[in-house]
């Protein structure tokens, strides 16, 4: 029995160490790789990766190569002097493959896109994920959601159960989806919207503006910047136009007084209602178990907390800019003051031509036009009436007003030319909890609040991200061009590296062929986007490759092995050569130093 096993083992080892297998593996590897590059040429890189380079069978082929390399080296046991070159080469290949394996298992790479002035702490990894957040429990679950090569369909849906009992199902998928918004009246919403139209002899444009959706509050439409915002009354509007600098960012309105939030945080401010202490500002507030916190620095749901000490004692308020009608004071106590938070966009006054539409507390709407640096008078909005703007021959009109608007996103498939990056994907998601069910489309990069079965969820579809453990602030992005042309000659990002744990803060330059190494990461200049009139964007690649040392070591060992084997063999096989000299060289006319590779 034992000898039988030994025989089989011997046979397998013999096969694994054979030259025949070596040549078969080498040739099939070459053929597979050739097919991979052709598929990349016909389709794209992702396709080649998915069907060739990232498959289990390709890994298996490399594994077979490693086994072959190892076994053939072992099969020469006991090793002789003349084996040195061969052994070193094969050892190098093994170390190189081991390094690649480590990279495959442990390594990852991602991106960091920073605008000038922005600080980044996380890298995004190019793997789409679905995020399910239970707003009541503060619990987050993520599911991988890469569907390009196995798109879910009605007959083959993707399903998952998340957050104890929530059933998620995806039954449709658009790989490249253009996003359009549709505005629908909805009494449950507190979200004023209006559609403005700018038309002139050269062009006509329409755009929806939302007073409380901060990313859709203002738009740059060719000739001018249009902004739609909440304001308490007409007097405030006039004051805002007179002193634009004071009306930017979050401002607390208290008893007729305007108090800029950022400048007065944690400072006692005397007001008519008493002494005010602004405690915290949250740009994207969210309530969880521990109270209020900000999810990120995006301006999505601004809120402010403060205390006020009046003659009747102290009060603690939480004010949301988005929900002006919500009671702001804690407990059942009815406050006398009615604070409101206004979060005014930074750039409403920045361009030479601008339009501001203000929605007052009483529901009336007024507009003012800035033409060539000067603001004009304030007028009431009359629907569908065209008004000359003074920006060339453009006219503006409000086409539609929806005081309580719900935004529905509509996704449509768009063709993407080869080699171009199209818009991101969208999925049709059905959530069900018990007998309740909700179905909606969601595009990558979006999130959505869903109330289902008495629970509040937040659903997001986006790229995976990973904290890098330190911060990078992009101070300046510079694009060098060749003289007299627009052709780039260099890309450089001047960054400040901040590590709060190790108390490091210093200035660094990241450029092509000049990466920044910090911690376990290497950060490279990958790409950029110039943004005339605004901050430029720098695209940095972030990579963690724990296998790199092994790969370099293996490469070095392998190359030295080949050199030893090919050019220094006479050093190791002198004896054999000498013995053969007489018979071989005289017979063939070959120079005497020719090594004989194979003994017959």
């Amino acid at each position, binding site marked *: 029995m034992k000898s039988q096993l030994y025989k089989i083992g011997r046979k397998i080892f013999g096969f694994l160490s054979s030259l025949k297998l070596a040549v078969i593996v*080498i040739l099939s590897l*070459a053929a597979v*790789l050739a097919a991979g*590059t052709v598929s990349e040429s016909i389709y794209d890189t992702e396709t080649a990766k998915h069907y060739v380079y990232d498959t289990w069978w390709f890994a298996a082929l490399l594994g077979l190569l490693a086994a072959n390399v190892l076994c053939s080296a072992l099969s020469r046991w006991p090793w002789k002097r003349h084996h040195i070159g061969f052994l070193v080469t094969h050892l190098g290949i093994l170390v190189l493959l081991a390094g690649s394996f480590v*990279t495959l298992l442990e390594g990852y*790479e991602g991106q960091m896109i920073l605008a000038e002035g922005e600080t980044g702490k996380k890298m995004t990894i190019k793997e789409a994920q679905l995020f399910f957040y239970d707003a009541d429990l503060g619990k987050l679950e993520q599911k991988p959601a890469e569907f390009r090569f196995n798109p879910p369909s009605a007959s083959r849906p993707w399903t998952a159960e998340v957050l104890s009992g929530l059933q998620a199902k995806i039954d449709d998928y658009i790989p490249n989806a253009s996003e359009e918004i549709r505005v629908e009246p909805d009494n449950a919403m507190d979200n004023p919207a209006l559609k403005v139209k700018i038309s002139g002899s050269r062009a006509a444009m329409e755009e929806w503006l939302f007073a409380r959706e901060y990313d859709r509050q203002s738009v740059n439409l060719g000739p001018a910047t249009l902004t739609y915002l909440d304001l308490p009354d007409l007097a405030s509007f006039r004051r805002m136009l007179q002193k634009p600098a004071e009306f930017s960012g979050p401002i607390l309105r208290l008893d007729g007084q305007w108090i800029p939030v950022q400048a007065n945080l944690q400072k006692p401010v005397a007001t008519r209602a008493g002494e005010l202490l602004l405690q915290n500002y949250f740009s994207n507030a969210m309530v969880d178990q521990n109270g209020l916190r900000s999810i990120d620095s995006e301006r999505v749901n601004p809120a402010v907390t403060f205390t006020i000490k009046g003659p009747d004692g102290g009060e603690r308020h939480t004010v949301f800019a988005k929900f002006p009608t919500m009671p702001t004071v804690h407990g059942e106590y009815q406050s006398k003051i009615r604070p409101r938070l206004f979060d005014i966009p930074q750039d409403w006054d920045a361009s030479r031509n601008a339009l501001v539409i203000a929605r007052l507390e009483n529901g009336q709407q007024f507009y003012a036009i800035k033409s060539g640096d000067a603001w004009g008078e304030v007028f009431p909005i009359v629907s569908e009436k065209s008004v000359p703007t003074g920006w060339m021959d453009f006219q503006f009109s409000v086409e539609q007003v929806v005081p309580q608007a719900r935004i529905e996103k509509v996704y449509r498939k768009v063709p993407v*030319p080869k080699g171009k990056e199209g818009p991101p994907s969208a999925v049709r998601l059905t959530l069900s909890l018990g007998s309740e069910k909700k179905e909606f489309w969601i595009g990558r990069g979006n999130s959505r609040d869903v109330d289902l079965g008495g629970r509040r969820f937040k659903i997001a579809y986006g790229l995976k991200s990973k904290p890098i453990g330190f911060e990078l602030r992009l101070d300046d992005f510079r694009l060098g061009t060749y003289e007299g042309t627009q052709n780039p000659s260099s890309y450089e990002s001047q960054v400040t590296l901040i590590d709060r744990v190790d108390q490091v803060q210093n200035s660094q330059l990241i450029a*092509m062929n000049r990466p920044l190494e910090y911690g376990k990461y290497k950060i490279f200049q990958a790409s950029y986007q110039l943004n005339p009139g605004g901050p430029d964007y720098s695209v940095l690649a972030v990579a963690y490759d724990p296998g*790199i040392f092994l790969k370099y070591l293996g490469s070095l060992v392998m190359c030295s092995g080949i050199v030893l084997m090919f050019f220094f063999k006479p050093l190791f096989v002198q004896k054999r050569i000498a013995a053969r000299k007489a018979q071989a060289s005289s017979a063939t006319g070959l120079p005497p130093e020719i090594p004989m590779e194979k003994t017959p």
Partner: protein
Amino acid sequence: MKRLAIFLLLGIFSIGISANLKAAMPAPKPGMEVEVLREVAIQEGGRKKPFDTFARETVRSVTGREKFNGFDPVELILSWLTQTQDWEKQPILDAGFKPLQAQVGLKVVDGRIAPADLAANQEFQLFMQTVSSKQQDGRSLSEIERHAASLMKQLNLFYTIASGASLTLIPQSGGHWESLEKLAERYPNLSAMQAAPTTEAKIAAALQGSLAAYFQNDTALFGQMSLMLRDLLLEQGTIVKDYPSAKDLQREIRLNRLKPFRIAWLAYALAFFLVLCSLWVRGKALYLAGMAVLLAAFGVHIYGFVLRSMISGRPPVTNMYESVIWVAFGIVLFALIFEAVYRAKIYAVAGAALATLLLVVADSVPSILDPAIDPLVPVLRSNYWLTIHVLTITLSYAAFALALGVGNVSLGYYIFKPQAKDRIDRLNYFLYRSMQVGVVLLAAGTILGGVWANASWGRFWGWDPKEVWALIALLGYLAILHGRYAGWLRGFGLALGSVVSFLLVLMAWYGVNFILGVGLHSYGFSSGGARGMAFFVGIEMLWVAFAALRYKMLFKPAAQPAVGRAG
């Protein structure tokens, strides 16, 4: 309209515009000395170069050849400037691509079309609209569309030369030099020049003076004016502290004039012939003469790219043209080394033949292998990595090419002189040595590429087609070496393998950039030459098939061991 500016300028010297409506092509003007203007610097294509280079490149782009109608390129530019109306009616644009002529109905004379005719061709302009929208979307163009786009470029180039808009000759502080057209707008007449007699105003005057002198065929005045113009431009360049030294300019003119790579291939061809003859002639004289010529050719070859390197400030391996020249250098280098070691003659023959072939290719298809020294994309701007990665990998191509050359000779012996066993054995041993050198360099070069990629793109290996094909070529040669070691590939198999696996090198070298056209090595992408390459590959394949058939017929299985070197 702007292109008339120069004519208005000329007007102040009261020259009548020749209303030559008859189709007579302007001819070179004897006695016009344009040497001085060659050394004037122009800022174009992202660097400063002598006007000589600019003129050669431009004339080559527009007309398809460097010397058009007997004109010196520099003089031709002057002629275009001063006699635009005559020139635009002449068939000068290279429009030899027949399918395009048929597609849009071009009025072609001997494969050429007149700029005015092309500009007036509605069908062509319409066709170009779809082409440029395709280009903007980044979609790939068909062959006809590519030719249309290139013809459009020629047309634009002609008119921007004629208007002076692309003649950015006037040094300015702040990087962007000013064009002749702009200068003419600022100094529309003599009083504007006299109002503020700055260097620039003087330049404007000298410029108009020289153009007028050229137009009026006044050789003496032209000589004076062009000298004055050169000195004034130098003065202006000194003022803005941005002008190349006379030494640099002259060096580049020397390269343009000497055409060292052309001399080199002529000499390589001669060396090939001499050493080849020495195979049959007794005595060493012919062989030594051949080797001397080979060495001399090698010297000129080296001198050529040392000049080129000094001009471009980087190792000369940044585009297809340079890599072809560099590989030719590598082939001769290895051939000389092996020749020194083995005195085999065959290395010299194969090396000289291959070097001649490559340099002829580099010299004869400027539209595919563009010899212009262009700026590099940012990622390539690292002389350190360019030197160690690209030089290593292209040297490996050279070693494999030498193996290919020797392999072909060996196949020839199998076909025509199969009884010369010793000779064949020696040949096969030589090609084996070349392959070994190639394998070492290719392995090292591919890995160095990974190390560079790790420093610039952030990963050691990313399955980029260029990397992958280098690996495939390496695997191909490794399969052969293992097959030889196992005894499966004897002499004939090895010779066959050296030829067949060189196709993998061609794919890695040319195919990835010109056929696949994907991946991160996109700075080397181009098109064209597929037919020539297919021809070469086809011939090699036929030759190999013929050799294999012949081998089969001659050596029946029983006789086989007699030829393969019993190792």
